[in-house]
């Protein structure tokens, strides 16, 4: 075989290798999810969703964890959404290209890379101890809001950047002020992109475990939170707790709870992708 043929062979081999690699990750994911479905699907029924945790695996349910996760989701949205979008708007519309803006930008990029458990330590010291909120839903939501803030800010900035300047110019030409332009033109135009970013950020928050463990979410909480200062548990922590229990019944419970968590995660990601496509089409 001469060298040309050898090279062609290598080329083809790499192509096969590339396809294999691409599919490996996805195939493994399918295997994992298949395994989870086999382990846990039959466990899911209405009583599983409405039962409180119990020492007996058959009677244990995810009610308190699910309620806790919904509480966390709502509170985190209320806190992080306005702050994140506001910060993104400022950086994109008002920030002058000076050293201060550059500093803010570097800073946000860094925050996005900080491990989530560090945010847990921050939340423990500031929200739980110094602000004396205890290991409450509020402390947990505040901690997670800090965690996802950089994601929302970046998404907001990207969406706003994509709005053509012609729209802003037209608005100014009609005599509108800066804020009127932003509120009436830029934000509605970038709304789809921002929403996508926010939903993806919240989807991340729903699956977070480590920061909430550090803040103090317990695993044995047999009631749903009734106010923001109540103690709580969330779905990922309930899963973590059940995984630690070696009896087969609890592994089944963990698998079932994972199915529900994945369902929520994938739905949220799906909605976000739907919005992203819809919003991107607008600009075509």
């Amino acid at each position, binding site marked *: 075989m001469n060298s040309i043929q050898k090279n062609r062979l290598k080329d083809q081999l790499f192509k096969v290798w590339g396809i294999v690699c691409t599919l490996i990750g996805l195939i493994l994911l399918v295997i994992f999810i298949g395994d989870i479905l086999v382990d846990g699907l039959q466990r899911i029924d209405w009583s599983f969703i409405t039962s409180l945790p119990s020492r007996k695996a058959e009677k244990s349910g995810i009610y308190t964890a699910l309620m806790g996760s919904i509480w966390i989701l709502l509170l985190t949205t209320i806190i992080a959404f306005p702050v994140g979008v506001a910060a993104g708007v400022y950086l994109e519309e008002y920030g002058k290209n000076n050293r201060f803006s550059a500093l803010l930008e570097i800073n946000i990029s860094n925050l996005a890379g900080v491990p989530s458990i560090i945010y847990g330590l921050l939340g423990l010291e500031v929200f739980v101890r110094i602000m004396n909120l205890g290991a409450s839903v509020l402390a947990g939501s505040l901690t997670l809001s800090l965690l996802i803030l950089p994601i929302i800010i970046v998404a907001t900035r990207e969406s706003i950047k994509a709005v053509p300047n012609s729209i802003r110019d037209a608005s100014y030409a009609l005599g509108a002020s800066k804020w009127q332009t932003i509120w009436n033109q830029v934000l509605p135009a970038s709304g789809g992109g921002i929403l996508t970013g926010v939903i993806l950020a919240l989807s991340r928050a729903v699956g977070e475990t480590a920061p909430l463990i550090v803040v103090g979410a*317990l695993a044995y909480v047999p009631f749903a939170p009734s106010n923001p200062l109540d103690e709580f548990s969330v779905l990922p922590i309930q899963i973590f707790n059940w995984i630690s229990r*070696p009896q087969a019944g609890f592994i089944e419970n963990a698998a079932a709870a994972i199915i529900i968590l994945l369902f929520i995660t994938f739905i949220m990601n799906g909605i976000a992708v739907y919005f992203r496509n819809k919003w991107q089409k607008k600009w075509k």
Partner: protein
Amino acid sequence: MKKIVLIISLAIVAISCGEKKAEKSIDNNDTTFLEGTIKVDGSSTVFPITEAVAEEFRTVEPKVKVTIGVSGTGGGFKKFSRGETNISDASRPIKDKEIAACKENNINYIELEVAYDGLAVLVNPENDWVDNFTVEELNKIWEPAAQGVIMKWNQIRPEWPNEEIHLFGPGVASGTYDYFTEAIVGKSGSSRGDFTASEDDHVLVQGIAGDKYSLGFFGLAYYAENKDKLILIGVNNGEEVVKPTLETVSNGSYRPLSRPLFIYVNSTSVKSKEVVEFVNFYLDNAGELSKDVGYIPLPAENYAKQHENFKAFVESNK
């Protein structure tokens, strides 16, 4: 987009209404229910009993919220001495340091015995060389001097394999740890530090069950729950090799690893009716439920005595 928001909000409202409805249907009975929150924390050994009691209690008083933490006996006492919990689970008696801490914060309490435990020594099912341990052997494995030195099975008995011992045990906040070190090493809290330590006994079960060369110890209940995954090893009490069972723990022949389990109740907390109810319920049902989870119940007269002591305590703290 608006439709989706609407649907999600409706779903959330529906679920929360569902919870209220469940509560309402209980209310439709004639009796009025107690309300309140009871905070329990402490020993992971005692946890299965307290958890069982709390669950049964919920069928009697569904509006009382009981939370149970597993910070370990030591961790539980720290919170208890700061007044952060109403009841502390403990797998060893309170220490002088902890008594002093309670005094500093004006916390008075009563100690109540609730069950017996036989501390179990366990190995992996594939371990076919250990049939029993003497106390001296356990001491040799676990004492502080063993840290980094005693690493292999054949250093204990030469006929055992030339393989690393993988040790698992409760961590330092655990009363089980305190008790084991006191009984085996001779000083509470004194042991080697290079082992897998966890206050979560389930982690220990999994660790031992998954590792051929493992050795560990924890409360008997966690063995009872996982009989198919672990092998219980008998301990030589000086005369014969004894395994922890209902009989051997009750009659004291499983030495030195038998011990009582406790709950400690805060004196201010007994001013609340729901706490008094809960503790009485606990003492009423501890015999049955401790057996249920794998521990050894006290003799009936002991429970009666605890009831009396508690009653007097409540009276004096009205």
